[in-house]
């Protein structure tokens, strides 16, 4: 149970810099998820916290202790690896008890801790099997059990669910969340799956190219993305982005409709400014199949190129100003390809980004 602090942490491999001086404060018992596309430096950051990678510059502390040069064994952390990294020559029981055995704890204490972990993760039946005789989900649980047995200050998860099939992944996701409730502890979790990030995290850290793009609660990053990258990375389907120019309180989309500058941005743009308008498919809906619009909205016609019925709603693909745009239809009715529909865009939920900096104008 400890805070984790990263101050100006840098990682270089020779001349190649992969993490560019990131700052991050993780609170006691907080569940923080590092998310980003592959190569964004999230795993490297986690491995630096673990001590598996040396840091090139900056400072990492766990609790009150600076751990920059401490080997992994002295950091009191646990890690769950993407490929589980279970010891194949040991039984489940030996795998779970390994860290305590290395620490030369008395056998009865080891037994008690191992039993307790097995209880929490319902592994008791498999204690004498070797990892080779376990299914993917069971291996995953053993890996988590090995992590909780030693009561670490911080749990580190490196894409722990990416080797599981879709159904098991959802199930294990819930188990990890439950585990966090049972074993109150600080967790740093790395994933490239934004759904995992949204569902698990107290706070999400979105990374790109070795920089932190935004830190916030799942709802914060969803509702007020700091830039176009976060806007398209978080949320599924990704946010629609259309380039336009501000003219007399309206945004002129090239070759598309004129759209009033959304209220939250009215004082923040100047005439002639190049902007990017962002809106989620949830806020662009055909009239009659939309949520009631409470604030300002605008209407325009759009041809539907393709529709994907999902049951409770249908995803509609059209194009505006030469760009593909996704919309949603509630209480869906069959839509034929090429059908022209009247769409309503909820202005209160729109986002504006500066076209040059890609940063939010909020």
């Amino acid at each position, binding site marked *: 149970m400890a805070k984790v602090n990263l101050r100006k942490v840098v990682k270089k491999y020779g001349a190649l810099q992969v993490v560019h001086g990131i700052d991050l404060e993780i609170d006691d018992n907080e569940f923080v998820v590092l998310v980003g596309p592959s190569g964004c430096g999230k795993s490297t950051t986690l491995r630096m916290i*673990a*001590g*598996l990678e040396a840091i090139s510059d900056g400072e990492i502390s766990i609790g009150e202790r600076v751990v920059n040069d401490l*080997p*992994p*064994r002295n950091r009191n*952390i*646990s*890690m769950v*690896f*993407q*490929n*589980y*990294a*279970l*010891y*194949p*020559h040991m039984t489940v029981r030996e795998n779970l008890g*390994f*860290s305590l055995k*290395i*620490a030369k704890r008395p056998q009865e204490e080891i037994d008690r801790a191992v039993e307790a972990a097995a209880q929490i993760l319902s592994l008791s039946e498999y204690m004498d099997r*070797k*990892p*080779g*005789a*376990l*299914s*993917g989900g069971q*291996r995953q649980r053993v890996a988590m059990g*090995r992590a909780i047995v*030693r009561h670490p200050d911080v749990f580190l998860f490196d894409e722990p669910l990416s*080797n*599981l099939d879709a159904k098991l992944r959802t199930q294990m996701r819930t188990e990890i969340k439950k585990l966090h409730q049972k074993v109150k502890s600080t967790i740093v979790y790395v994933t490239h799956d934004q759904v995992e990030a949204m569902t698990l995290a107290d706070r999400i850290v979105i990374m790109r190219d070795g920089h932190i793009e935004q830190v916030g609660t799942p709802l914060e990053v969803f509702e007020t993305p700091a830039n176009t990258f976060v806007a398209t990375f978080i949320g599924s389907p990704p946010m629609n982005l259309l380039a336009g120019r501000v003219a007399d309180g309206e945004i002129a989309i090239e070759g598309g409709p004129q759209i009033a500058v959304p209220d939250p941005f009215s004082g923040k743009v100047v005439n002639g400014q190049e902007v990017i308008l962002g809106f989620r498919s949830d806020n662009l809906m055909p009239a009659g199949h939309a949520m009631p619009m409470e604030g300002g909205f605008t209407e325009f016609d759009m041809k539907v190129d393709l529709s994907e019925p999902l049951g409770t709603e249908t995803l509609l693909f059209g194009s505006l100003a030469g760009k593909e745009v996704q919309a949603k239809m509630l209480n869906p009715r069959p839509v034929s390809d090429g059908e022209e529909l009247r769409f309503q865009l909820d202005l209160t939920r729109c986002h504006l980004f500066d076209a040059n900096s890609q940063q939010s104008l909020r």
Partner: protein
Amino acid sequence: MNENLQYRIRARLLKVLHFVTLFIAMAIICVPGLWVVLNSFRPTVEIMAKPPVWVPGDLNLDNYRAMFGAVGEGGVPVLQYFTNSLIISVTSTLIAILVGMAGGYAFARFRFKGKASIFIGLMLTRAVPGVSLSLPLFIVMAKTGLIDTHMGLILVYVALNVPFTIWLIDGFFRQVPVELAEAAEIDGCTRWQAFWKVEFPVARAGVASAGIFAFLTSWNEYALASQLTRSTFSKTMPVGLRDFTSEFTINWGGMCALAVLMIIPALILTFLVQKHLIAGLTFGGVKG
């Protein structure tokens, strides 16, 4: 004729053919060995008989008795040769394995300058025929005073075996995921502990097979040993076989008896270590 029947007959015939071919191949491989064993129990007359006598008429232990007997009556210092062979093979194998593990681990895990060229260099030493080294080795050993000693032959066998053990063990360590050692380090191990408690046990099948190969190479090697060992105190068993040749005669029965004694320890060792050779230990620890 019924089409199915046709195919069934053809499958049967193929199967029979398969067994016959297999039998012939195995016979070619096994007959010399069996012939050696058989001859060690037969008198010279029967061994040299033309046409060959396949079914032995007279089996006895005379050759063994003579071999263990006094020097003048065809006896050979078997125990001394055996001890020499054992000391030289075991020691050189142990050293080759230790060096092989260190080297193999380094090649499997670390990145360093000239890695590829060093590796190729090591492999190239295998391309040199062993016998061509006999004269240079003889001179070096003679100058350093290592000729006719256990130590001399041990050094030669280590040098002969190390490239191979490195290559083999490197392959096995490559199969052990790096994450295992990392997990062990996070679980509280030092680098050293992580190796011995996790990586070594997982890769031990590879180490065992490298050990067998190194041992058998040293145990069976004749060409170099025949140059570098002269006296009873350093001669290995393969060299000892030559004691059965004299100016005009060759004692084939005695030679075969000693050969059988040579084969037995090698067989026993292979059987003992065989179960470690079963790979697949690394499966299951990672992924699904």
